[in-house]
């Protein structure tokens, strides 16, 4: 599994993991993100059972097991958090931050030891040492209880499934040609995102943020002007198309 540092600040750094060439063929490729401070680490959308071992090995190249104190799961999907039962054994004293709406469901993945911190619908703040992250509501884009995470210091918007693209495991980390990238994400957004109203509400919410990197859970990240290009494209996209089938 590849690991790449995407932000280095004075007090924290962001690392993205993914493009695992050894993952089973039929499971979707995922990006996992790590925010690391001096003594703590937050893992965002740690992924499914199938990638647990390579993911943990990759993490242990960066931090000790004791340093992984927090996990964030944006929603309940298996590619997001079906590995929970294994993390629960590996880091039992850690905290899982996830929407309140999904607690009773996510616990089905197996959670005997970790602490569940239920995020209220309106979002809030997640603090890792002195790094303050904003939890931004992204309900119905696509899950009915769902959050994006914004790091104002890194100017990084972690967007979960928003901005996701279905690509091969050897794809680059960042979008290089936005127009060529559109076909790789169009179908995904039209089918998985159910509500134009919810989509536009999220766009309005994040437009006021100063974003340098938009980091989705699948496919390439957006950087610089491609962030605005993505928001404009997404705004004009009709979603929820399966209702017409």
């Amino acid at each position, binding site marked *: 599994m590849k690991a790449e540092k995407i932000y280095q600040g004075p007090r924290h750094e962001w690392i993205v993991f993914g493009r695992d060439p050894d993952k089973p063929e039929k499971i979707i490729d995922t990006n996992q993100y790590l925010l690391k401070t001096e003594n703590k680490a937050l893992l965002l959308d740690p992924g499914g059972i199938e990638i*647990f*071992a390579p993911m*943990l*090995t*990759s*993490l*242990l*190249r*960066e*931090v*000790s*097991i*004791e340093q992984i104190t927090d996990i964030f799961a944006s929603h309940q999907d298996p590619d997001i958090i079906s590995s929970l*039962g*294994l993390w629960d*054994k*590996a*880091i039992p004293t850690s905290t899982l931050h996830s929407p309140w709406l999904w607690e009773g469901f996510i616990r089905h993945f*197996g959670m005997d030891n970790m602490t569940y911190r239920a995020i209220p619908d309106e979002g809030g703040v997640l603090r890792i040492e002195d790094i303050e992250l904003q939890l931004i509501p992204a309900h119905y884009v696509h899950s009915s209880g769902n959050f994006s995470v914004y790091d104002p210091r890194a100017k990084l918007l972690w967007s979960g499934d928003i901005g996701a693209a279905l690509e091969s495991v050897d794809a680059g980390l960042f979008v290089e040609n936005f127009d060529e990238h559109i076909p790789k994400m169009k179908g995904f957004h039209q089918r998985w995102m159910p509500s134009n109203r919810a989509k536009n509400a999220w766009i309005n919410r994040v437009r006021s943020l100063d974003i340098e990197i938009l980091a989705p859970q699948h496919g390439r990240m957006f950087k610089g002007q491609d962030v605005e290009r993505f928001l404009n494209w997404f705004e004009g996209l009709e979603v929820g198309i399966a209702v017409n089938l």
Partner: protein
Amino acid sequence: MSIVNDRARSYVVSATVASELHALTHVARQVSIIAKNARALAIRAGESVAGFKAITGFIEEIAKFSSERGSSIDEMATKVSRVTVDIIRMADSLDKLQTCYHSDAAYAKTLKDRMNILKELDDDFHKEFRRSVRRLKMEINEIGGQLRGVQMMVTSSRVEAAGAGNFKEGLNSVASQLLDAYTEMYRHISRARSMMNEIRMEHI
């Protein structure tokens, strides 16, 4: 068969044993109804079936015993299934942590303490499993032994029926229903017993 398949087979087997024993409690309820009918019949027949009255008491006891013990060993079998799943999940976790521990990751060895704790928990699960399986086998054998008494009751009921005049048909009917219930209960117990023999410690 691979270790993984053997493990999976073990929890399927123990869950199947639980379902067999749960079915036993349903039959025990039928036996309880048979016992009530037999008692009503004995009261109507009066002194001509004095020996049968004693038999009805025994049928009631068997119904009560089968129902209570069936429920408790059904719970025991469910517990075996649950512990087996715990063992399998733990083995899966340990396998994966082991892989990471032996990797070249800079912090791989920081997993050691956690793995030791999990291994201790794993030992506890295995002890619990052995204890539960032993107890379950004993209980199944005991209830099987008790059921053999039902066969004698069926024979006694038929003997009593022969001298019961107008009540002969009714008593024979009770004996037949009892025999059917016994056959069904025995089938569940036999299945549970033979499936329990499939659970071996080396499989998990």
